[in-house]
């Protein structure tokens, strides 16, 4: 399945998640297994389809990546060994970085802060708010 549009979102998502949406053959098992589809505007397999087609703007408007609870049921069931939960997290990260821009980096923090703040929080913060 070839992507029809070149998309930066897809490229960045791939880098973040290590998952290639082209490996999906659209069996939709993720959607059948997902416990929170009732609240989604796009079903999980449709999110992958949009990624395959590079429909960046439509994805940006969708609520689905934000509703995903990262329960990993989709990943456990996927016959193609794809981890959709990671892909959703990848989409969220790309969106956050775009929206929030470059808020702070290691240089913005004092050595004291760097020492005191938990490592995990720092890394997580940089991933979201540092380009």
């Amino acid at each position, binding site marked *: 399945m070839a992507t029809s549009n070149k998309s930066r979102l897809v490229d960045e998502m791939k880098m973040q998640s290590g998952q290639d949406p082209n490996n999906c*053959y*659209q*069996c*939709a*098992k993720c*959607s*059948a*297994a*997902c416990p929170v*589809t*009732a609240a989604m505007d796009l*079903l999980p*397999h*449709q999110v992958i389809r949009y990624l395959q087609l590079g429909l960046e703007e439509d994805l940006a408007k969708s609520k689905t990546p934000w509703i995903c609870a990262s329960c990993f*049921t989709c990943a456990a*069931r*996927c*016959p*193609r*060994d794809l981890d959709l939960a990671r892909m959703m997290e990848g989409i969220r990260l790309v969106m956050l970085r775009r929206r929030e821009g470059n808020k702070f980096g290691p240089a913005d923090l004092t050595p004291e802060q760097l020492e005191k703040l938990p490592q995990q929080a720092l890394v997580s913060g940089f991933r979201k708010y540092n380009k």
Partner: protein
Amino acid sequence: MPRTGVFICHCGTNIAGTVDIEKAVEASRNFPGVVHADDYRYLCSEMGQDLIKKAIEDNKLERVVVGTCSPRMHEGTFRKAAAEAGLNPYLLEVANIREHCSWVHKDIEEGTPKAIALLRAAVAKAVLNESLDAPELEVEKRALVIGGGIAGIQAAIDIAEAGYEVDVVEREPSIGGRMAQLEKTFPTLDCSACILTPKMVEAAQHPNINLITYSEVEEVKGFVGQFDVKIRQKARSVDPVKCTGCGVCYEKCPAKASSEFEMGLSKRKAIYVPFPQAVPNVPVIDRDACLYFRKGRCQICEKECPPQAIVYDQKDEFIERRYGTIIVATGFDQMSPSQYGEYGYGQHPDILTGLEFERLFNASGPTGGKVVRLSDGKPPKKVVFVQCVGSRDKARGMNYCSKICCMYTAKQAVLLKEKVPDAKSYVFYIDVRTAGKGYEEFQRRAAEEYDVAYLRGQVGKIFPEGDHLVVHGVDSLSGKIIEIKADMVVLAAASIARADAPDLGRIVGINSDSYHFFNEAHPKLKPVETHTAGIFIAGACQAPKDIPDTVAQASAAAVKAVGLLSKDFLKGEACTAEVNQAECSGCMYCEAVCPYSAINPVEIEERYHGGTLKRTVAEVNPALCQGCGSCTVICRSGSVNLKGFSNEQILAEVDAICLQR
């Protein structure tokens, strides 16, 4: 220095495109020993071969080097041409300047010197070539078929009809295989037993076919034309000559066990025939279930048997026979879907696999042919079929498509409608694959005339709720989540290789792919051959396939087997190993590495300081040797040589490439 001729092929532009042929011919003329060099557009053509033949005669050539494609392509062609011109065929050498040169280079400046180097090496080797003769091997005019399913039966009948003896070894008490378990066959809805049993009877009655049931192949030795096979005939505990097949024994037997033939859905007796049309119709005592074997008393079958055919102390027997050729047709298994927790298989009696569901339709099946729920005996009104359970699943199952499920699901949905007219079927599918004559039409009929709802998507979970099974799935075309309160769920479980297929492969000497299906020698042009000469494969042991493909492949394998059996002698391998016994130290490492058991220790006498000395050295049986060269590599003293590929010849080639100026 032998008079050598070099012939270079253009292969259209395949070689000429990246090798300057004129330069190569010119360079060849200067190689030591070369007295004639020429080129031609297509050497493999009749004209090209005539060119070589004529040059051999005109120039009294003693060695020939052809610079062409891979020896795998045309070595045979050119050797035959050389032989027709009166030259020993092994005096011809191929320089592979296509696959090894022109195809891998883009630049003529790089391709040409490499082609010249390869030609120089081939000439250096050819000079050291010796005349060789391939030994003639006798062919035992009898075939062995392993597996008595439809593939094995068809192959056996075809070979027998051609006038050769065939033994069919079947592991189960009866021949028939998977096809015997089926109710109907797609797309014609023929009754499976009605078309299979006549073939089973034909096989049993054919004077050239010998059925060896309840038996397994334990050992295969030898080589094409002369396979020595050891077959274990498991103790039936019933004398097949005395037994009349009256069935009193299994009527009276008080012990029960799960029926393999019914996929465990019902019980059979400890003494049993797997199904009513069994061939041979001779029961077997399952010693693990029999009360007499377990506890020492009962013996009801012995008392009741009118012809006194029960033999409790029967032992496993071994049959050792020689066969010219072997056909492996061991069939397939169905994957157990129990590892897919979301489908709940094994947790509920109304969640079945395709093959289990098939048995419900059969008049002699566990429900007597009534399609009912195993939980409460009521006919199911809503049945959900789930496709690709374990197939097309690289994460938890098999990466391949099992090929038959789309069609048998459509068939079962149609049959269901006929048995339970108010039943509604739902099929969750990823893709419907109906490649085959009449298949697409059949599947469309199921959807259009039999009201089978095809839902494009998969099932996420199945769980019981009251009397029903709730199936939670999705239809990806509408983007809707679908929930069905079903009475029954049928899982199209993947077709997989037999669990012990690799073991049999090792015994017989053929290899299998990563899924344990046996490998054909070439995916397109040698579909029933294996890499081991004289051994052929047929049916679902090679890959999942339907009955028409299986039968076609079985007949193809039979033709190959008959072609082999029709020869009185086969040409063996000329390039075999030989031991220089004067240098051999008798360490016998070569014996250990030889995959064909072609090397044995022998004792020789040598004169030593006036007396004689006895010592052990290695000896190669040229009839068994396949020329693989393992022994030449392991030999510490370098005293084993492969004819046609001697150490001297290989080093001459290396020198010719490395020492060129």
